[in-house]
């Protein structure tokens, strides 16, 4: 048996996202999809972020940071098998609003794919709960 066996490879509900510190893909997902009002399918997400949290593409650094922080401190709430392409984990990240919405703390549902037992999580999608 390998002495380098990573015992944190298995995702579990209630546990932190495996290899969350190595999570990636958030900025591009927000820029090209979840905060992009020109994407006809993604536009409701962008409108939701603006309406609920006053977060727009101008706030991408803020939201990106909040999601990466959530990836290392918030436990996984759901796991779906994605065979043969690994698994999909849901992490619900509390995000504080901006400007006039700064008094609101709203759950943002994030979905992460983990393609193999040693792969870092990559953001698949995100949306705020109204």
């Amino acid at each position: 048996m390998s002495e380098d066996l990573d015992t944190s490879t298995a995702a579990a509900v209630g546990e932190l996202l495996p290899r969350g510190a190595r999570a990636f893909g958030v900025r591009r997902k927000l820029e090209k999809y979840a905060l992009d009002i020109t994407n006809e399918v993604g536009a409701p997400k962008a409108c939701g972020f603006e309406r609920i949290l006053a977060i727009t593409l101008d706030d991408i650094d803020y939201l990106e940071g909040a999601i990466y922080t959530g990836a290392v401190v918030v436990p996984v709430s759901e796991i779906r098998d994605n065979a043969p392409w690994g698994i999909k984990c849901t992490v619900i990240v509390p995000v504080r609003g901006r400007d006039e919405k700064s008094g609101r703390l709203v759950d943002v549902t994030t979905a992460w794919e983990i393609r193999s037992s040693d792969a870092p999580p990559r953001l698949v999608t995100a949306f705020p709960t109204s």
Partner: protein
Amino acid sequence: MAVSVKHAIGEHDVVAFIETIAKAESTGIWPTGTKGVVVSDFGDHKMIEIVGENGETLDMPIVPVDKLKFVTKHS
């Protein structure tokens, strides 16, 4: 002569189903013409997010690329 341009489908592109697709998160089917976004790319298969009117995820089936029609480019 008209020239047909075939777009390679990439992540974040908007696509439409060219035939019915089984739902991944529940029973039933998505009808032909349902639009979604490629949220993960597995080469000859794509994970497609179907989005509700408030931006929430309705479903994320993994679909063979030959059952998808390119709609708009965002990749």
